[in-house]
């Protein structure tokens, strides 16, 4: 790791102020992704602002019957929260499908959303990667791209977003609350948090530099069942080949795009009475095959109907 300075923030306002005042500063929460990348010389902040102890680790009821999850709430605490388990089981299922117990105990809600891709070409600093080094090219595009995106990719980048949690949040229509460097609070739908790669895959979110995620807000649980399914090479502690969150009529896909992918075509088709298989086929018309990731098209076409069916059964059981 390159040398950096470190400070611990005591309140959110101070944290964003410090970020605005210090060049090349980064927020450090759980550290499970940022420190990994710093050790590999992929990230090299000059200053770390430790926000891990900010008083934003609570899960609270909102007046409209939803939940506000503090950005510093660990993945484990959110997954274990009784209200999340009973009202938003898809979120618990998604969280516990990710990482390991140890990682979930450290990883935070905000950090999970902002984790970077696991693309092997991003991780290998000897390879071209437009995300890591803009303009260097994409090693995955014509490479061993089994894990790459099938939706929304560009010629500059076919990396995927690795979060499980974010897929469930996308299906739940969660909202993100932030504090900007100037101290302004704002809120927006999670689906507007992450960007597609386009020409600038190094810019991964719509956050402005120095903006801090303070909370994730869940609307009241929608009607209908919920289900999360993740497919992977080994039974645990590994990234997904594809995942799906179903919440009522909402369908979000993971490990298939640069962001949690709301399958809006499939949702429209379902709403219009199509079968789950027909619905996902409509979505997959836009999917691309870069050589080795094409199997994900077949996989998603089989996985989504199974998850929709599981959610419907669960919904009927309520």
């Amino acid at each position, binding site marked *: 790791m390159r*040398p950096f300075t470190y400070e611990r923030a005591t309140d959110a306002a101070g944290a964003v102020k410090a970020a605005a005042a210090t060049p090349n500063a980064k927020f450090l929460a759980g550290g499970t992704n940022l420190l990994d990348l710093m050790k590999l010389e992929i990230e090299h902040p000059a200053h770390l602002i430790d926000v891990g102890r900010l008083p934003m680790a609570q899960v609270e009821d909102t007046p409209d019957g939803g939940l506000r999850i503090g950005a510093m709430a660990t993945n484990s605490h959110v997954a274990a929260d009784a209200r999340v388990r009973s009202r938003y089981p898809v979120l618990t299922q998604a969280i516990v499908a990710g990482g390991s117990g140890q990682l979930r105990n450290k990883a935070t809600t905000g950090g999970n959303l902002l984790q970077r891709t696991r693309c092997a070409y991003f991780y290998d600093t000897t390879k071209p990667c437009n995300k890591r080094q803009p303009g260097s090219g994409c090693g995955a595009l014509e*490479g*061993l791209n089994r894990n790459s995106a099938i939706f929304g990719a560009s010629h500059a980048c076919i990396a995927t977003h690795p979060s499980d949690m974010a897929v469930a949040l996308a299906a739940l229509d969660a909202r993100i609350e932030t504090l900007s460097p100037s101290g302004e609070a704002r809120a927006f739908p999670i689906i507007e948090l992450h960007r597609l790669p386009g020409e600038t895959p190094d810019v991964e979110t719509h956050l402005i530099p120095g903006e801090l995620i303070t909370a994730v807000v869940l609307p009241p649980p929608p009607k209908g069942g919920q289900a999360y399914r993740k497919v992977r090479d*080994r039974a*645990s502690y*590994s990234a997904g080949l594809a995942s799906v969150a179903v919440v009522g009529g909402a369908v979000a896909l993971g490990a298939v795009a640069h962001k949690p992918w709301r399958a809006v075509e499939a949702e429209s088709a379902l709403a219009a009475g199509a079968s789950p298989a027909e619905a996902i086929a409509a979505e997959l018309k836009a999917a691309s095959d870069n050589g080795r990731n094409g199997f994900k098209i077949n*996989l998603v076409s089989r996985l989504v109907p199974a998850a929709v069916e599981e959610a419907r059964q669960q919904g009927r059981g309520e």
Partner: protein
Amino acid sequence: MSSVSDWESTSNPVKENRAGIIGKAVDRYEGPLKVTGTAPYAYEVEPPSPPAYGVMLSAPIARGRITAIDTAAAEASPGVLLVWTHRNSPAQGPRPERYDFFTPSPRPALESDRVYFFGQQVAVVVADTLENAQAAAALVQVTYEDDAKTVDFHSSYAEAVQPPGESDVEIGDFEAGFAAAPVKIDDVWRTPLQNHCQMEPCATTAWWDGDQCTVHTSVQMVRFAQNSLAETLMVPHKNVHLLTRYVGGGFGGKGSFYEDLVLAALAARELGRPVKVAFSRQQMMHGTVHRPATEQRVRLGAMPDGRLTAMSIMTVTHCDRRGNFTEHASNFARSLYAAPNRLTGHRLVRLDLPVASAMRAPGEASGTLGLEVAMDELAVKLGMDPVELRILNEPEVDPETGKPFSIRQLVRCLREGAQLFGWDKRNPTPGQVRDGRWLVGVGMAAAIRGNFLLPAKASFTVDAQGVITVKQGMTDIGTGTYTVLAQIAAETLGVPLGDVRVEIGDSELPPAPGSGGQFGAATAGSAALDAGMNLRQAIADIAVADPASPLFGGPAEQITFQDGVIAIANRSERLSELIRRNRPEGLTADGEIHPAADSSKWSQHTYGAHYVEVGVDPVTGEVRTRRMLGVFAAGRILNWKTARSQLTGGMIWGVGSALTEGNAVDPRYGSLINQDLAGYLVPVQADIGEVEAIMLDEVDDKANPMGIKGVGELGISGAGAAVANAIFNACGARVRDYPITPDKLLAALS
């Protein structure tokens, strides 16, 4: 010189096992240190003064030349003590053109401007702290000139050659036999490049005292590494003291040693202070060794009743440009099934890839993934039970050499395994059994792995407290060496296990070859037994000659050793008292073992049978192992507990090789796609259901004086094939390109 007939006809304390310590489920000797975290591995040994930290830099190209180096920024970086590249690294012994595991030779680090493989170490930075060394290493600027490279195995078959000194082995007329066979299997299986992924990355702590170099490192072969390091440093062998007391996994990957050892020793000499150097996890993947990929063409010809008339495995594999290693995936088939017409052999492609070498059960681990599935496919084609097909083709003598088997209980393994597993409840039609979202299937395979014995020495010392100390330049890489040596000592000298000390992993102790090829226990243990017998003799000679001993004047050959007491009939005294009177400084005896001159008269192997139940999700192509049973025949078992763990560990390696493990080469760069443990997937706890290993009663008196054989590599042999066969039974799909991942299985199912 040893002879098999001597071994068979001579009794010894291990065979007699009077105290019952041999075979017992004894806890690991070094276990208390390991469960408390107090066993110091190489990087954790406390040096005489605070160490400096070395971090290596690896080449980002597969083949070429270093054209420019700029170390100025690194040298100016805080805390940096030294930056070495090939331009300023110290003089070292010259690398031989070809080298092997058993012949020590120099292995110079940073030797030239040539890059032979991606990940080759090209620089080292030593600094006062690990953080400073890591930061400075990233500042070393190296410019390369790329040469044309050949790295893609499957498109390079045209360059395959017969491995040096080898020829194909044909018995009968394979082509004619195969052509005439009414039932045939002719398919190709592929196994990928695999990485050892020992939990402890290679690491060394080194320091010098005058011209004496002390290194604590993590290797499987003590004397080999010590001699090789001395020759690299260009100092006499005796000037290097190499210790490797605790090794965090080897599996063949630490059979050799790497730049951490050489650079730590060189830098410690240069700086006059201890230096520690470790590989990063990422550096382990390219910078050490790997199991090379194979492509195996398996052809079986059979009569309608199942009798094999022709069989062939031809394997193509690869090694590095300067190497000679051949993954002998065809060899085991020469002894497994009877068939009059047989053809086996290998072809080797040299590629600009990292160094290929041995990984747990080299040959068998890869080869059984082909033949043992081919046998399953043949059984399906014939409409036979695959267990019965194997039993039908059981040979009476070695089918190629005609030699008798030393002992062969494969059929018993197959039958007992089938019974214990409930094989008779199997539905032979695929895709019929469901459990929730899972299709459930069962499969089986045979296991075979060769047995070996190498020369070794050992010494036993008894002190005035009656404590026996075993000394041997042997290693314990998790195999149980400490424990079985203690058991042999306790049983041989008739003392409680608590009165035995074991010192191994030290080049100043009597040499033993080390751990590998599942020869460790037999080799080290046989030398230890000899030392123990010689110590008994020396004790007896002293006792009958000591007028102060109750045993004085008695017949030395009648002395018994039990519970720390030596006795002739009703005359006895404590062993400690005899030693205190006669040899207060302790009494030492040496022992040794050599392979028997006549051992090649027999075909000698270990055997087993695997039975596996898997679940296949037909929607996603995911496979989960639900239940595994292995029944093994591997000679006398020294320690039920450690042997069973070796076997179950090997079986789980089989699951990894079948389902998740494999590394792929990106041909544009000559590098491996998976460079860490998030990319290269070894099994985790959730991948593994119930696992049981049964060890049959067996003694192989032709193997060595103890009648034991190895178990470390038998468990993996065939296990992956049983998983693959269970997948077929579950869902009706065959994937012959390992590992059987969801993408491939979905393609086969669709």
